[in-house]
């Protein structure tokens, strides 16, 4: 594919609308991003900083933002902490940031990261249900596991075996167990969201009953790692089921996406790979018995966006020099203009992706480049919305409000 100019074919080919999200993290995904003039590194622990970013994303009519999180400091190593002082370290709880922003926004979805490995599904379920209540139906979550020994030591409840080599049978077993546990975690969270029927609150003055307790349900979950009784203490959220999302790079996490998610983020580096990943996840989805349920697959890309592609490339080089090493990522790193990115997204979408989660390399620069450059470009191609068409995140994603599993069982 030639990245030099917009290909005429893409504007004449039938287009469908894409979904677009941005992944917010610190000052951006490049480790030296905080040194850019637009970065505001002293403000990453303030509400105003996040409010401004999400307002920018909402101006661009994006479907949602995700907020990264972790139960330990960021690190340049995959499994171990580092002691670097030249990169952003420290972050606020993502669910709380999302809640703090919710009353300041009206349409955009808010999808904080939650780590399933060390948290209680009961707490997570009511936190996301409450995020949905405070945002009137715009909540989701990104579920994540952690195999980091240092994060396990922050909790001291369990030892997670150290992964020495990723392709060893031991490592595979550890990782699959963590993902199986995450799948149980999400199952509990989802059952708790349904544990109140929508019309459980009756305020029946004749009998003095505030609720109809027959419309509240014990979830009685028994799994390998934990059991949870229910019902939730929080009434069913406005969306019924907030949107569950997960990032996945391999068969084991693909299975989590196939079993439990509404959106999976995947990291294809070209269209062929995208096609293969989509096929694998669709097969897993069918074997999980969910073939008929909607499951969005979004491509993840890191983006350096400038009107002049050469400027984007030199910005990347400048940041790499400041960081002392070339930036690498699990996701494809795109450098270029909004029009070139629009081409790439449309081409990748043809492999079966319904949207993209873009990771701005520098939030202060690349986020406005997405909302003011990429979005108008996609709109010109009739590939992106021109106004918010729904008030809930499920609505924006074209997902129906699910029936309550317990209500269905008794009906």
């Amino acid at each position, binding site marked *: 594919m030639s990245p030099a100019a917009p290909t005429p074919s893409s504007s004449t080919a039938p287009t469908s609308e894409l979904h677009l999200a941005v992944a917010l993290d610190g000052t951006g995904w490049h480790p030296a991003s905080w040194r850019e003039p637009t970065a505001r590194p002293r403000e990453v622990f303030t509400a105003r900083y996040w409010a401004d970013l999400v307002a920018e994303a909402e101006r661009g009519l994006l479907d949602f933002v995700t907020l990264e999180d972790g139960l*330990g400091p960021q690190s340049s190593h995959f499994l171990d902490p580092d002691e670097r002082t030249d990169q952003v370290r*420290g972050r606020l709880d993502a669910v*709380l940031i999302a809640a703090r922003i919710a009353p300041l926004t009206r349409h955009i979805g808010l999808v904080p990261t939650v780590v399933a490995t*060390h948290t209680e599904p009961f707490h997570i379920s009511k936190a996301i249900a409450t*995020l949905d209540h405070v945002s009137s139906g715009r909540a989701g979550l990104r579920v994540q596991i952690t195999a980091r020994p240092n994060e396990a030591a922050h909790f001291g409840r369990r030892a997670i075996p150290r992964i020495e080599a990723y392709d060893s049978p031991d490592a595979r077993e550890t990782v699959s167990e963590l993902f199986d546990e995450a799948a149980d975690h999400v199952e509990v969270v989802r059952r708790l969201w349904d544990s109140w029927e929508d019309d459980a609150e009756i305020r029946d003055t004749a009998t003095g009953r*505030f609720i109809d*307790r027959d419309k509240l349900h014990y979830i009685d979950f028994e799994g390998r790692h*934990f059991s949870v009784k229910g019902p939730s203490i929080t009434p069913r959220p406005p969306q019924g089921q907030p949107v569950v999302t997960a990032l996945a790079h391999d068969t084991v996490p693909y299975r989590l996406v196939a079993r439990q998610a509404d959106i999976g983020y995947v990291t294809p580096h070209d269209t062929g790979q995208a096609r293969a990943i989509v096929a694998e996840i669709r097969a897993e989805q069918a074997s999980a018995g969910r073939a008929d349920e909607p499951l969005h697959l979004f491509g993840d890309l890191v983006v350096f966006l400038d009107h002049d592609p050469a400027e984007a490339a030199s910005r990347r080089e400048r940041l790499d020099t400041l960081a002392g090493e070339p930036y690498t990522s699990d996701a494809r790193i795109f450098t270029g203009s909004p029009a070139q990115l629009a081409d790439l997204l449309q081409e990748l979408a043809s492999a079966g992706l319904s949207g993209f989660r873009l990771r701005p390399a520098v939030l202060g620069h690349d986020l406005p480049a997405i909302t003011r450059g990429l979005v108008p470009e996609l709109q010109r191609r009739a590939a992106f919305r021109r106004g918010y068409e729904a008030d809930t995140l499920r609505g924006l994603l074209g997902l129906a409000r699910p029936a309550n599993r317990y209500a269905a069982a008794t009906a």
Partner: protein
Amino acid sequence: MSKPLKQIHLAAHFPGVNNTTVWSDPEAGSHIDFSSFAHFARTAERAKFDFLFLAEGLRLREQGGKIYDLDVVGRPDTFTVLAALAAVTERLGLTGTINSTFNEPYEVARQFASLDHLSDGRAAWNVVTSWDAFTGENFRRGGFLPQEERYSRAKEFLATATELFDSWDGDEIVADQESGVFLRDAKAGAFVHTGRHFDIEGRFNVPRSPQGRPVIFQAGDSEEGREFAASSADAIFSRYATLDAGRAFYSDVKNRLARHGRRHDQLLILPAATFVLGDTDAEAAELAREVRRLQVSGATAIKHLEFVWNRDLSSYDPDGPLPDIDPNTGDTHISKGRAQVRMYRDPLATAREWRELAAANGWSIRDLVIETGNRQNFVGSPETVARTINDYVQSDAADGFILVPHITPTGLDPFADKVVPLLQEQGVFRTDYEGTTLRDHLGLDPLPRS
């Protein structure tokens, strides 16, 4: 020389799951929509209150093996709703009740430190110690802790969380874009805690928050609970809002402080209190009677009696006499998930006393419950209520009150509009916030950097 007037502290308890909320009133709105929380918080802030308070219960209450359905049921997640409220208020403190039995210090410390950052220094934590295996069934760690263990875990939980809060001094973030130094100290957030309940180490990942740590509240009433508060809390949420019981509790707890090397003014005593206002005292008294009848339906009265009798009394007529059978003193209790049960430690004596009261006054079951329980603390015209609250505070029955209106979410409005101005005229309540943090509002010393 007369004692200088104490300044009153006032706070507002969002009326959620409790037996005071009159949800049947036509004015009663949603107890779950964010608009209700926003209205309530804005009223409290307009009245210059110190903070908004949220209680918590981690399992729906049951009675006789069934979910209790006569009071408001359902509430939001504490942290999430407080973070959202930080967006619609600027000064009001945000106090959340968070259990130390069914949480882990690293996570709770992160959430409170985050809330303190996101609210610019307005977070407070009411540390409670849930007591039962019933609640434990909702959690991974399951089970529960015996009474003594709960406070031992609570104390170590708070100490551990404090170590995490103090693991950042507050000046580590340099973020010098020129030199490329983000952190001054590579070890910022490092901690090691070894103890009976927690054995944890690593790096805390939230930098020091505006208040250093949240303000600490405690709500338990036992000997261990009072000691815990005297040693470690900034304020107590108490249940003693009457003059005599309040004064007794106040002096008991304040007298414990010296032993922990603390001054009298380092622990505030703030009882929960209800109120009913009318244009005149007589009108208020009449309204208060009506509210009590709405709070205690016939069905509610029977359920209330069951707490003491610890048996199914559903066959009794609420408008008839008290049961002549005795309470069941067996181990398992008919009611689950309720702190209130612990108030009746000698059910046989309570039953005897109630029977005598009912016989002497000709009361039915419902009359008895109305007369003995749920009496509003402050009833009268705005003048009377303002005077009474001030008298209580000046005579050391409390340092102020956490008010629980019986209507959600507008029940605080008349207090804000009518009583607060009178307290302000008397010079015992602020006319505007003087500081920005909750510690400022409560008059607590700023915390030194660790």
